[in-house]
């Protein structure tokens, strides 16, 4: 058993090595296919980063009547924070709100002057709420509008923002759907192209398969080296692909960062380098081995 396995692997490597051009061509096509897969993967990371970034910008603020005790607001905050559809709730006190307002308008002497003349803080305390999914804002807001809060609630800025929030939700979900569809179609193409290349490679060697069978080799003894070669093509293609992407990502990363705020492609690539390689490696080897297995079947029937 061990000797046979050893021989199968030896023949597999011989096969790769002595059919240099065929092997090089097969690996090249698989590099293209895996590049497509890796490219799609990175693209989905980018779009996801953009979506999360956009969703993070969406929030709703609930303002409280001046003079509402902080404990009361804090208890509402705690209630909201306990909800499963709420991502975060931040309390902004009247003083903080004023502080921020001043900071934002420090270039404008008129604002400072007006505030000076008013003498008191015109701003209200608020809770800044972010939902896990923007679609859930309506339900969250409804809970704030109940009778028990009517006396202290000044206003919720949800309705002004509602159209923007709805539009954004539909855009992000459209991006996700299109991305998924595109990935599915291109992945199928990548798989078919790899399979076809392996098919052609084995087709050119079909006579050898026949000879091996006539000399008394069992199906597994004939098939083994082709599967080993297929696995090797997958391994080689995955290494070449991940190596080629490094300079590409380094070069393109900064530009992409400009287009897609919140996405640092290079950092993502560096941090997940091994995982990304593992993904293309597994896909490459699976394509190589399954492709070879399917392609050789027909020629073993001698």
């Amino acid at each position, binding site marked *: 058993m061990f*000797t*046979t396995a050893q*021989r199968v692997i030896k023949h597999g490597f*011989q*096969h790769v090595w*002595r*059919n240099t051009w065929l092997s090089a061509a097969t690996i090249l096509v698989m590099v293209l296919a895996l590049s497509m897969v890796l490219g799609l993967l990175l693209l989905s990371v980018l779009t996801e980063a953009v979506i999360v970034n956009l969703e993070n910008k969406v929030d709703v603020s609930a303002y409280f009547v001046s003079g509402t005790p902080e404990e009361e607001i804090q208890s509402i905050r705690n209630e909201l924070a306990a909800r499963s559809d709420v991502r975060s709730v931040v309390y902004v006190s009247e003083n903080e709100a004023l502080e921020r307002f001043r900071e934002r308008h420090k270039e404008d002497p008129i604002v400072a002057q007006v505030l000076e003349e008013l003498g008191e803080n015109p701003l209200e305390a608020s809770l800044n709420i972010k939902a896990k999914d923007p679609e859930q804002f309506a339900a969250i807001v409804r809970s704030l509008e109940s009778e028990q809060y009517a006396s202290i609630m000044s206003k919720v800025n949800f309705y002004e923002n509602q159209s923007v929030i709805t539009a954004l939700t539909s855009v992000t979900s459209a991006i996700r759907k299109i991305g998924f569809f595109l990935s599915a179609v291109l992945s199928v193409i990548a798989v078919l192209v790899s399979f076809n290349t392996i098919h052609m490679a084995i087709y050119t060697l079909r*006579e*050898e398969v*026949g*000879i*091996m*069978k*006539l*000399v*008394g*080799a*069992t*199906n597994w*003894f004939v098939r083994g080296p082709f599967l080993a070669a297929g696995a090797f093509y997958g391994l080689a293609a995955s290494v070449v692909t991940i190596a080629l992407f490094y300079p590409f990502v380094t070069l393109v990363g900064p530009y992409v960062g400009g287009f897609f705020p919140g996405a640092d492609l290079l950092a993502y690539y560096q941090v997940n380098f091994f995982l990304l390689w593992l993904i293309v490696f597994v896909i490459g080897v699976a394509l190589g081995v399954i492709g070879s297995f399917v392609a050789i079947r027909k020629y073993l*029937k*001698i």
Partner: protein
Amino acid sequence: MIKFNDVSKAYNSHCALDSVTLAIGKGEFVSIVGQSGAGKSTLLKLLIAEERPTTGTIFLNDEDITALPHNELPFLRRKIGTIFQDFKLLPHKTASENVAFAMEVVGREKKEIQEDVMSILELVGLEQKAKQFPHELSGGEQQRVAIARALVHQPDIIIADEPTGNLDPLSTWDIIRLLMKIHELGTTIILATHDREIINTLSKRVISLDRGKVVRDEQNGRYIL
């Protein structure tokens, strides 16, 4: 040792072999002759189960090979050494690797393979060309590698399908002498050919086929069609 019982083989409507019944004993040297298309190759293909008969049975050492399941064919083929007109060497393996392959298939030890391959290559006079690839060898040399491969696991039977069909006269006689030598060592030889000179020189048993039927079967036969 080999028995064909009323064997017919049809490809679609064309009948390649028609009710062939014959027996070949251990240690015989039998030539199968006939025009192209007479059914010689079909007969040999049936014997290594490369093709299955349409009707009839074929026995090898009391085993019905027409009933063998597909996964047992390799074991049948290891008992028979086959030589083809187009040599059928593995193009990406050297002469010695081609011969060794037949032994690796059976799972023999590495050391044993090395020794046997070298001695069999010496027998066919190619020990100097062990490391060459088929395309670096002449036709006659390639056929000798093929013979070495057929011989290396000491089969009881050697089947040669037009082994000299692609060779010049000099190489042709090299191959025939080699086959006679192997026969003298006790191996059964079945040789398909349409080379009149070879048949007449051998003066062994000759089975003549015509349009799929056995038309003549004579000891010390001659080539008559």
